[in-house]
């Protein structure tokens, strides 16, 4: 075992990369849940985004078009969730599960010709001098744009929810859809927009895995990240900055266990690989006592009788 082979600067830099898919998916789901909708299909939308982004990036040679395609792919899949829960008024838990099962199958089908291919590299930020700073450079200025987009989205969602009128309306819809409806807000329309935003974010997160983090396509490669993102929203008690904190915590655990595997620690690989999931459960247990922040209408079906 050789722990000195773990470089702290690289560890922090790769932690940020590992955290970004969770962060993107979780911030999207946070907006969805703030609107009072529980979409358990995050995993399905992520994996669909992962293959859409990968395929488009490979075919066009442009990672940016890939990411755009991933966002559209994720949003398109979430449209199915819209049809089920907002139009057909189906149970949200069941519909979310259906979305995940369907997304996993669909992605495997779409990805058949793409196994073992390398995607075009996503360029990293390269600011002369700043990116070369020892220590800080690779951590703060050496990443790709999508990673910064993730952080910017957290800030934007936070500001939107806290300061803007749109955020207020979104929260009203999530807290009491009947009251919001009585005030004349279009509950269904607002929820649809939130769900589509969530789908696009999950798609981006998925593509970040297949285009930057791994970068390759394998079936089922999201391996539960979508579910971890869902858990993250709960234990961030629906607060954007806590989502960022939580995502980095998880990125840290993931990267650390990979580093420990590589360093040849005496713990078997399988037990290390379990750790992110076990720690998710642990944190859920510690933080789920307090549910006071949950949107009051979360998961409830809205049907305007008149």
């Amino acid at each position, binding site marked *: 075992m050789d722990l000195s082979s773990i470089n702290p600067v690289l560890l922090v830099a790769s932690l940020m990369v590992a955290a970004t898919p969770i962060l993107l998916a979780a911030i999207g789901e946070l907006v969805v849940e703030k609107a009072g909708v529980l979409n*358990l299909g995050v995993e399905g939308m992520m994996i669909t985004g992962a293959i859409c982004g990968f395929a488009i990036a490979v075919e066009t040679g442009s990672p940016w078009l890939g990411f755009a395609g991933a966002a559209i792919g994720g949003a398109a899949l979430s449209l*199915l969730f819209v*049809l*089920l829960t907002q139009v*057909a*008024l*189906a*149970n949200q*838990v*069941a*519909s979310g*599960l*259906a979305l995940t*099962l*369907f*997304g*996993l*199958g*669909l992605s*495997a*089908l779409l990805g*058949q010709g793409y196994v073992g291919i390398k995607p075009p590299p996503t360029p990293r930020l390269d600011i002369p001098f700043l990116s070369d700073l020892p220590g800080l450079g690779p951590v703060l200025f050496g990443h790709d744009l999508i990673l910064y987009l993730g952080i910017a989205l957290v800030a934007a969602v936070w500001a939107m929810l806290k300061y803007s009128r749109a955020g207020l309306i979104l929260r009203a819809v999530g807290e009491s859809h009947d009251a919001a409806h009585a005030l004349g807000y279009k509950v269904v329309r607002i929820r649809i927009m939130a769900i589509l935003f969530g789908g696009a974010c999950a798609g981006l997160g998925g593509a970040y895995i297949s285009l930057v983090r791994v970068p390759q396509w394998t*079936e089922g490669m999201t*391996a*539960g990240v979508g*579910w*971890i993102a*869902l*858990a993250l929203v*709960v234990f961030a008690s629906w607060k954007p900055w806590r989502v960022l904190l939580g995502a980095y915590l998880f990125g840290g655990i993931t990267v650390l266990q990979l580093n420990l595997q590589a360093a040849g620690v005496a713990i*078997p690989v*399988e*037990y290390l*690989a*379990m750790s992110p*999931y*076990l720690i*998710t*459960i642990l944190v*859920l*247990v510690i933080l*789920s*006592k307090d*549910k006071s922040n949950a949107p009051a209408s979360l998961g409830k079906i809205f*049907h305007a*009788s008149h």
Partner: protein
Amino acid sequence: MIVLEKRPQPSRNWSLATPVLAVLATMIFGGLLFAALGKNPVEAIRTIFWDPLFGEFAFYYRPQLLVKGAPLVLIAIGLSLGFKAGIWNIGAEGQYIMGAITGAAVGLAFYPLDAWYVFPLMVLGGALGGWVWAMIPAILKVRFGTNEILVSLMLVYVAEQMLASMSLGLLRNPEGHGFPGSRNLNDYAAANSWIHQNAGLHWGVAAALIAVIFAYVLLNRHMLGFHIRLTGEAPRAARFAGVNPARLILFCLGISGALAGLAGLFEVAGPAGQITIDFNIGYGFTAIIVAFLGRLHPVGILLAGGLMALTYIGGEIAQSQLGLPAAAIQVFQGMLLFFLLALDLLTNFRIRLHKKEAA
């Protein structure tokens, strides 16, 4: 203008008709999907739904129906009890894996002892393994209010790692020349779940039928079953009626875990034969579709389990004969759940055409 009018009670007729309509819709859209993949849709649908039952080689495929259907029905029956009460165990895949591991471990511990009690002990071990795995989300939910959906799902990934660890380490066949995977239980008569291999009969099939009857009696004749239904349909009324939610959570998750564990054990002691890294093939997730397709009703689940087993087998035939990708069948199964949930609108709502009244 089209208006949805909530029915005072879900329509019984529509509730029975929607699964059939959903299957038909899935066949049509599935056919379109197969056509988009460049296959003849009619031929593909016929290969999936007709050939395993009445085709030239049906004598070979019909027993397979029992083999694939049994674990699906067994798991779905357990899940349906919880789903009825709004308790969402979606980690049956993990409980299935753990049941297989513990059950096989019991059997392998006795190897090569030839005694009548080996298999019954394995059955107990399998049920116990699944039960313990499901008790984790149950106890966390009761004690800390943790979301059982997320915990049970996280435990699937933990169980998968455990499976890898077991087949490479603790349970590896000592005479397997270092290859991963346990001893093959099909070579160990005392630990075998087959009753009649050529007919596809193993103890899991029997257990699935017993579970169907048990669930039917529980839901229709027993107070606990009434409490389950009451909690799902009117949670407030259930509280006033003195239903203990903690007990219900422990019961529903426990029974579904035990049944999933049993399914895992019967699979490993029969059709699969050994613990390997890729032992699980998603029965735990497909069973969710089976439970919904069967309307959470024991008899419905029996029929739905048969249908899903058919898509598995037909899918394999279509894969080898028509070159239809395996993933297409997965999409097909996912589609089924979609159409079912969407068409359920007709069960709970009445669609009315309203003329706009003059103001």
